[in-house]
């Protein structure tokens, strides 16, 4: 079964008009859900085993079930939707907001009903202007048509900070603070926005909700790679591939199928060197693993992550040290500065990788690189540090020969021919903490 669900009706052109969305069956599931008890809606989500599409892959229904019912708490209950999409290689949430904004709104309203919330905040990254406008227009139409009923939906725009995609940093930002992650527990389900119970879901997850109800939880649980990776996924294919794009396909297709059949293969005349799998935050995939299925279990068995559904092709014209360096620079720039291993560690990674690239590092520095990664992973409040360390460590271990070649030659074996040559970090911007490297 390779049915399009999340982007259904918008395969050719965006489905932005309310009447057109209704013609395609839009808002029928909201009506159905509102006729059901909130617990019954949550139960359907649990049965479908719909999992979070933001990267953590947590079962959405279970997360919703953690929210206390209004009779148990004297505080408002909040739904916050995470559309702070900033993970390098990820552009699915953007496509969703542009192409099916009403399905986003319908998903929000169904989820709000499931947790008995009257307050919804959709946090959209600040750079997404057209996406904000698309969502705002759909929201206006829905409001005018009386679809929101007594639920208030507010679109809150970020202002440029990758870390605000981390759920507790998002809450801090939504409270008008610097976006620094909180210590957990307490978890947002108990103490989230304004210390109130808060459900946080990625926008793709929320947009899948109406479709889960439409096809039915049991049928949904059959799609893709059950039992754990059910349903479809809007995969983000990019990099050195002939037909990049956002492709909604069921979990369980292989990486090779996505790159070769769907994407038309690697750019003419080039060969595949690595795949940025799941996003920039995870270990890179080597060509030998291309037949791995795109589901959490199959990827997990080989040490990979499905992340936000990113498959970015890196070809043989790319220096892997430059690739690791560019990723490390990104995390150095985006580290919020709260935890020392991440704040300092990401800088060390950049310094060491620069030395490798320049050919001035020693063999021992490669061990230091791995040691620094080890001293970051699992030692911070959030996973931003891990996200810097995992791809770097994987590049060093999987492409050790190429790292060693830099040291042996006293410089980059690609000369200035690597695609990423000279691609520096955005030094002009104020990073969250002062950058002196």
């Amino acid at each position, binding site marked *: 079964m390779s049915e399009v669900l999340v982007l259904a009706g918008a395969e050719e052109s965006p489905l932005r008009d309310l009447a057109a969305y209704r013609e395609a069956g839009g808002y029928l599931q909201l009506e159905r859900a509102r006729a059901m008890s909130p617990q019954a809606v949550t139960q359907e989500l649990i049965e479908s085993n719909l999992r979070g599409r933001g990267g953590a892959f947590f079962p959405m229904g279970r997360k919703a079930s953690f929210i206390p019912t209004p009779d148990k708490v004297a505080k408002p209950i909040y739904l916050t939707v995470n559309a702070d999409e900033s993970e390098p290689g990820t552009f699915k949430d953007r496509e969703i907001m542009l192409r099916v904004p009403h399905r986003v709104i319908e998903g929000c309203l169904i989820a709000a009903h499931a947790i008995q919330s009257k307050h919804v905040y959709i946090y959209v990254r600040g750079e997404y202007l057209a996406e904000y406008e698309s969502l705002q227009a759909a929201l206006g139409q829905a409001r005018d048509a009386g679809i929101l009923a007594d639920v208030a939906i507010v679109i809150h725009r970020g202002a440029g900070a*990758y870390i605000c995609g981390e759920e507790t940093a998002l809450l801090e930002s939504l409270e008008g603070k610097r976006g620094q992650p909180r210590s957990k527990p307490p978890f947002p389900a108990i103490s989230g926005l304004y210390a109130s119970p808060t459900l946080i879901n990625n926008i793709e997850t929320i947009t899948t909700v109406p479709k889960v109800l439409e096809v039915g939880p049991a049928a949904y649980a059959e799609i893709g790679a059950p039992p754990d990776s059910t349903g479809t996924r809007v995969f983000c294919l990019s990099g050195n591939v002939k037909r990049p794009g956002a492709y909604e396909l069921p979990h369980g297709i292989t990486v090779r199928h996505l790159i070769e059949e769907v994407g038309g293969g690697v750019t003419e005349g080039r060969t595949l060197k690595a795949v940025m799998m799941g996003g920039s935050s995870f270990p890179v995939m080597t060509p030998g693993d291309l037949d791995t299925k795109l589901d959490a279990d199959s990827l997990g068995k080989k040490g990979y992550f499905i992340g936000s559904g990113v498959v970015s092709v890196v070809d043989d014209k790319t220096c892997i040290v430059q690739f690791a360096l560019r990723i490390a620079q990104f995390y150095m720039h985006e580290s919020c500065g709260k935890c020392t291993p991440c704040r300092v560690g990401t800088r060390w990674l950049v310094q060491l990788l620069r030395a490798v690239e320049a050919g001035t590092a020693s063999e021992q520095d490669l061990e230091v690189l791995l040691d620094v990664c080890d001293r970051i992973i699992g030692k911070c409040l959030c996973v931003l540090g891990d996200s810097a360390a995992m791809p770097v460590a994987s590049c060093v271990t999987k492409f050790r020969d190429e790292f060693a070649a830099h040291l042996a030659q006293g410089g980059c074996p690609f000369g200035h021919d690597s695609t990423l040559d000279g691609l520096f970090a955005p030094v002009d911007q104020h990073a969250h903490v002062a950058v002196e490297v």
Partner: protein
Amino acid sequence: MSELRDEIEQVRRDYPAAAHSAVLPALRLAQEHYGWLSREAFEEVADALDLTPAYCMSVASFYDMFHLKPVGRHMVEVCTNVCCGLVNAQAVLEAFESELGVGPGETTADGEITLRAVECLGGCSTPTVVAVDRRYRQSVTPEQVPGIVEELRRV
């Protein structure tokens, strides 16, 4: 009451539980009015939200899209993260540098155009992505750069 103050009062209503949640939208409005966030802009935002200017500055300094120094009338932001980089974002950035005669983070001498190199803009399937006055241009090639600059100089 000033127009900005009116707009901030308006946006404040989106956050009935806590006015400080309106800091980001209020700072954005102030920046839209003045082009950047001056000391006066911070005072105005703080006053409208019953906060201190220092608090508003501490928040603004965390976020990349707030300008704490004056910037050009137009803004050109080139994505330089890996996905655009794999398809040669560097050449696009260099084309802007030579066309404008400034480096990333700098503004042309006439105060017209600021060039920035930015992190992933989320347009990875259409590299290179360039945000021109916040609007995304996709699949931008170095050859298109003179045309974009000329367009900006005209408006």
